[in-house]
């Protein structure tokens, strides 16, 4: 039980990863898939930040020139900080594609073969 609590963040990471993965794999609605992808991303962020945590440490922003305190690892934070912004950009790109699919086919789920509505512009 104690080992479970010590790795609680990692278990949550695994559960969130699988929730997101399930939505991406099994849901038919494209926006739901994108939301699932966001949860998946958030799980990865959580994994990185959890790995950078040091017991008894504090945020890697030095207060009052005290360089000898225990700090958490700044490197995963840097990676994830940029990854979050990249995440929103990819989300926006995905949403743009979904909007175009809706305009062209009138639906946003991938059930059955999509039919092109008559009179609609096919995507160029």
């Amino acid at each position, binding site marked *: 039980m104690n080992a479970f609590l010590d790795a609680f963040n990692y278990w949550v990471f695994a559960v969130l990863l699988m929730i997101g993965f399930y939505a991406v794999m099994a849901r038919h609605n494209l926006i739901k898939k994108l939301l699932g992808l966001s949860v998946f991303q958030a799980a990865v962020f959580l994994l990185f930040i959890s790995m950078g945590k040091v017991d008894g440490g*504090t*945020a890697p*922003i030095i*207060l009052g020139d005290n360089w000898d305190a225990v700090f958490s690892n700044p490197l995963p934070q840097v990676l994830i900080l940029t990854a979050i912004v990249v995440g929103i950009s990819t989300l926006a790109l995905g949403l743009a594609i979904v909007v175009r699919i809706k305009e062209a086919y009138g639906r946003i789920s991938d059930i059955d073969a999509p039919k092109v509505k008559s009179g609609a512009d096919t995507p160029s």
Partner: protein
Amino acid sequence: MMIGAAVAIAVTMFLALLRALMGPSVYDRVLAVNMFGTKTVLLLSVVAHIAGRSDYLDLALAYALINFIGVLAVLEFFRLRKVQQTKEAPPGEAVGAADEVDERPIPGEGGS
């Protein structure tokens, strides 16, 4: 004392989350999100105090700002949806009702 306040805020976050999960109408969810955001701001302020780092308060401030924008975005969404529904529905038909209206029946409303 501040730890007690933190516990109260955390419990309230849980209650707000329950409201967001239960719905039933869209407005309940927005209400829950708004409440949740305020509680997060308070919790962060308390955490900043307990951790003794005043630079965490920047975050609480950012949350307060962002929360407001989120609620306004939802309102704009409602408005846009209403415009679309008015456009799509034939005139004379009732439009714009909350689409997930409280499911419990309200007896007597129709009869009286």
